[in-house]
């Protein structure tokens, strides 16, 4: 089976659908049209650029260039985590915590699944490593961003409760347990939901893509299961590390809650 290439006019037909939607929302005064168009334009530009970069990368295929692209993706994801926070930690801590937690979870899970599970030759072969890293990083980023957002927001809102719990002599861990639990749940819920509904409610994007590209469904399903599990692990560990670090940062060395560390 060979893949049917799409021509540009076919893509512009799909774009016309988005424009039609934007016009409809504009007429109905839902004020979504502008952000919808901007997001669509961004998708087109960003993906075109990534396509060019990947073509070049596949041609070169050295470890150096693969890791440089990985690093760029990580830093961009860290910046995305920060921009999705309602309240951020002062002094770049949100960026640092987000980046570190994605580094320890998404990167190590990617390398683990490349080396141990898939085993391409060489292990960093960009055709496997970059899409895998991208998917893990994307999902981990969402988990970390949701978890941190929930955590800082609820700590800030429930300041009285935490202060009162500290007054009764609870440690910072005890006083924050409910909030850490909530934040973990917020970060992991999308992943748990998508694992529970996969295949029944929707066909996961990667599997669909592979099938469209001519892979047999059995192989595509195996890859999808692998991806789902690694995403769950990556998101879970990433959110866990981020929530732990951020909670620690919200309390000072005398175990006081420092709401003024948020902006």
């Amino acid at each position: 089976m060979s893949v049917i290439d799409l021509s540009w006019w076919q893509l512009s037909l799909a774009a016309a659908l988005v424009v039609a939607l934007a016009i409809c929302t504009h007429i109905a005064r839902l004020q979504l049209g502008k952000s919808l168009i901007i997001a669509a334009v961004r998708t087109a530009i960003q993906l075109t650029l990534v396509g060019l970069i990947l073509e070049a990368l596949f041609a070169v295929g050295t470890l150096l260039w693969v890791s440089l692209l990985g690093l760029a993706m990580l830093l961009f994801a860290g910046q995305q985590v920060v921009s999705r926070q309602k309240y951020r930690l002062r002094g770049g801590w949100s960026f640092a915590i987000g980046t570190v937690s994605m580094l320890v979870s998404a990167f190590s899970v990617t390398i683990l699944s490349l080396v141990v599970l898939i085993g391409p030759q060489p292990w960093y072969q960009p055709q496997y490593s970059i899409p895998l890293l991208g998917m893990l990083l994307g999902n981990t980023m969402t988990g970390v961003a949701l978890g941190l957002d929930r955590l800082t927001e609820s700590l800030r809102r429930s300041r009285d409760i935490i202060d009162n719990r500290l007054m009764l002599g609870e440690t910072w861990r005890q006083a924050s347990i409910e909030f850490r639990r909530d934040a973990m749940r917020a970060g992991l819920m999308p992943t748990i939901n998508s694992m529970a509904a996969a295949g029944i409610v929707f066909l996961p994007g990667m599997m669909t893509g592979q099938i469209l590209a001519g892979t047999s469904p059995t192989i595509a399903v195996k890859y999808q299961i692998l991806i789902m599990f690694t995403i769950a692990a990556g998101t879970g560990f990433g959110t866990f590390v981020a929530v732990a670090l951020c909670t620690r940062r919200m309390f000072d060395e005398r175990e006081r809650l420092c709401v003024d560390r948020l902006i």
Partner: protein
Amino acid sequence: MPQLKLEKLNIGPLKKVRLEIQPGEIICLSGSSGSGKSRLLRAIADIEPHSGDISLDDIDQKEMPGHQWRRQVMLVPAQSAWWYETVGEHFNQPMEKALKTLGFPEEATEWQVSRLSSGEKQRLALIRALSYAPQALLLDEPTANLDPDTTSKVEAWLMDEISKHQYPVIWVAHNREQIQRVATRHFEIKGSRLIEREISQ
């Protein structure tokens, strides 16, 4: 018997506060609103950053972790917070006697926290604090939301507990009669200093 000692304490508008509170002694603290009474108590409980030395029984605050200090030097804030479903879950040990003395029925521990009135919350917060068996008490207007009858019940119970356990106590109060009834000594915050006042009869 523990003694609570403040030395060169700076917090908010207050500078170089020096105060020694003997076991069983009740220091009443008054001052206009915004004068820094609550912040002083929060600093002593180490819930707010401050400079200077605070010690209990000659052991410095900095020598132990924050939570351990706060378990001993217990602050009861003017507005208490509640986080579990029922009242009883907040107590560290059963407090049947205290509940009875302050006019609560036995099943009060099963009450829903969301249905408590402000006066009930205030009394229950005092009982909750004592259920953790502290060494010293910092009370921020402990009878502010109570009617005169309940106020005298709470005062009597608190004074009883204080003399039984020999807590050193700082008690923020505005009411002149209450200060006369409970205080061993009375200080007023004026600007950056604590000034001792006569407890006139």
